[in-house]
């Protein structure tokens, strides 16, 4: 009996080594969980539209993890595309270069709106960056002095906010969304609330002053959510006075359970975001290894299909799901740059 099993084991091992030599015939993508739903839609329709190619594999795991995998090197054992909800940063570009990934093509697929929402049992909510800053900053200015955030109830900040104690569920620091939240809400709110001048007067180093401006309170009122939006939704359903941060697409799919807040009086929608009226949005990207184009079957076709108007256009399935399409000239530019082989 044991001999039989050992030979089966040997068989498995031999299959393993034979397979290592076989060519990869499937595009491999990894990265941001924000881009994942869009990449999945494209991958699925790509597989259906081009029967000659297999459906690409799309891994989830976060922008940072995806770019790390992407920058491991060139060759079949490495992934072809990294999805990212933020631009690639300098240290990642250097890591790529060091591993031999010299030519990287950046592709901007569109924009993602970030919305603030409360449970649907609440009234209409209108917020401004200033309000969120006051509710969530670690230190605020009272009578011209920086003090630890004293606010306990939403009513102390803005009467349209839910009645009850302040509770906010914001993306954890590993999410790209957190950066956008800090940059577009906390930094602006800091300025509008007049805290920036006080902080600048106290701290001369510009970097430290900005960090102080965007620091979120850590007394349990603002909760970092390291999971996905489904977790934030569950928290809001459990705490009716809580305010959560969501992606526009997620909100649109769950609009019967949530009430979205206007920011500066603007209702978030694909229209207000693409026109630039709604202030909290960010571009989404993916990065392609130029050395893999033409080597991995279907990679070039997948990228071309992704950036065609059938997919990223304002009438395409990605916009249907919640992606904010880039303006016409930007989409055209992306297609031109990819065709010309423009690298970073």
């Amino acid at each position, binding site marked *: 009996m*044991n001999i039989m*099993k*050992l030979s*089966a*084991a040997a068989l*498995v091992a031999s*299959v*393993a080594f034979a*397979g*290592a030599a*076989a060519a*990869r015939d*499937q595009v*491999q993508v*990894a990265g941001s*969980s924000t881009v*994942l*739903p869009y*990449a*999945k*839609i494209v*991958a*699925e*329709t790509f*597989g*259906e*539209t081009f*029967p000659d190619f*297999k*459906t690409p*594999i*799309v*891994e*989830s*795991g976060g922008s940072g993890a995806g770019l790390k995998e992407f920058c*491991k090197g060139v060759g*079949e*054992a490495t*992934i072809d595309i990294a999805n990212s909800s933020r631009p690639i940063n300098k240290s990642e570009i250097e890591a790529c270069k060091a591993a031999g990934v010299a030519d990287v093509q950046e592709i901007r697929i569109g924009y993602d709106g970030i919305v603030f929402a409360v449970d*649907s049992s609440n009234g209409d909510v209108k917020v401004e960056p200033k309000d969120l800053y006051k509710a969530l900053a670690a230190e605020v200015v009272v009578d011209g002095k920086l003090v630890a955030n004293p606010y306990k109830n939403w009513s102390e900040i803005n009467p349209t906010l839910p009645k009850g104690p302040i509770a906010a569920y914001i993306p954890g620091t590993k999410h790209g969304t957190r950066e956008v939240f800090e940059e577009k809400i906390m930094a602006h709110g800091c300025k509008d609330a007049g805290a920036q001048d006080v902080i600048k007067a106290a701290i001369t180093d510009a970097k430290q002053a900005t960090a102080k401006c965007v620091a979120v309170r850590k007394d349990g009122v603002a909760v970092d959510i390291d*999971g*996905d*939006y*489904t977790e934030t939704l569950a928290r809001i359903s459990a705490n009716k006075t809580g305010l959560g941060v969501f992606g526009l*697409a*997620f909100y*649109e*799919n*769950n*609009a*019967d*359970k949530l009430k979205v807040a206007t920011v500066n009086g603007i209702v978030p929608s694909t229209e207000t975001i693409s026109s630039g009226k709604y202030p909290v949005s960010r571009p989404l990207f993916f990065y392609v290894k130029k050395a893999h184009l033409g080597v991995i079957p279907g990679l070039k076709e997948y990228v071309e299909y992704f950036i065609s108007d059938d997919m990223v256009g304002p009438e395409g*399935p990605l916009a249907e799901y919640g992606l904010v399409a880039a303006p016409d000239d930007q989409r055209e530019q992306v297609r031109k740059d990819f065709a010309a082989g423009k690298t970073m």
Partner: protein
Amino acid sequence: MTDVVSPVSGIPKTKAGRRDIGIKRRYAAERRFRAYGVAALSFGIIFLMLLLWSVVSKGYTAFQQTMITIPIEFSEQTIDPQNERAANPQKLMTANYPVVARNALAKTLGVSVDDRVKIRAVGQLLSDGVRTQLRDMVVANPAIIGTTQNVALLAAGDIDSAFKGQINLSVAEGNRKISDQQVTWMNQLAESGVLAKHFNTGIFVNGASSRPEAAGVGVALIGSFYMMLIVLVLSLPIGVAASIYLEEFAPKNKFTDLIEVNINNLAAVPSIVYGLLGLAVFINFMGLPRSASLVGGLVLTLMTLPTIIIATRAALKAVPPSIRAAALGLGASKMQTIFHHVLPLAMPGILTGTIIGLAHALGETAPLLLIGMVAFVANYPATPLDPSTALPVQIYMWANEAERAFVERTSGAIIILLLFLIVMNVGAILLRRRFERRW
């Protein structure tokens, strides 16, 4: 009990002349202990029931799928207007099938094809998956072009959720994915029996999909099956051989003690560590493909080995020394003693340990994250070298989806996984019952 208590000197006598041997106190202590036991057990059962109730009540609807059965006219006009399919078979692949389905549904609903706004809303009642469904029908049998067939089409995910009552239709129209008009159509179709719930075979056979109505655990089941096969084939012989050597042949010294401590430690190492190891060794060093169930199987083998070794050693230890002594006394060699007498008697314990190890491996996601198996995989894997995913991974990925229809599917997939675990654990109990020997 009382009659067997023998008189013990030194215990003070009570007034009545009988010695107080604390019977009442001891009985009370026993009753209390039993109550604690019952309380602990009911605590566990309550939580198990809560878990099962929450999973089953949310998930049972996933095994039904809303379908729209309508006569579809495979009109040559729409599919192949220039009649070029003989010269160019590709034409049948790229034809505009969604329009065929949409127009058929519009006809059933009495909506004019020229009403652009309404016709769009009609199209949204149907899943985007109808494109491949109708295409596969036509490609398999081009003769149906020009005929009218009754076809059961998948309803869109939002319609499916609304029909099952999972979308709150009392909120304002703008706050939900389906419009009042679409709800009216849905009710109209349901009344005439065109739209109805059918058993959802798709959830068992389909691969991953971004459309909830077309998503299934098929690829994940195959991936999990491959991985379990690899784990069984590799870890059982290696684990049994290692434990027989350690238990029966190896000298007892500091070195084997060290090995034993390490094996026990490995059994408690967080599983993500095995994923890191798998990434470094199997993918980066040996160059095995990412996302392949082979790599997943190898990683889970490493994770399961300590469990199997510990179970096997315990099973071998439990075989009475008299069996070994008798065999050796009758002139059997050590090898014969072990393989003819000890191992068969230890088999139930070994198999139980193996199945529990496998069940543990079946439910594991963390080590698969790093080797690229937490991924969207739509194509069936032909061999263990092809990309695939696993059942618990599919649950995790569905749990993070935004669409309402994925909520029930997540619980549905949990029910499927639980069924597999129950089958495996019942198997372990039956094996033990069947082969167990008592001395």
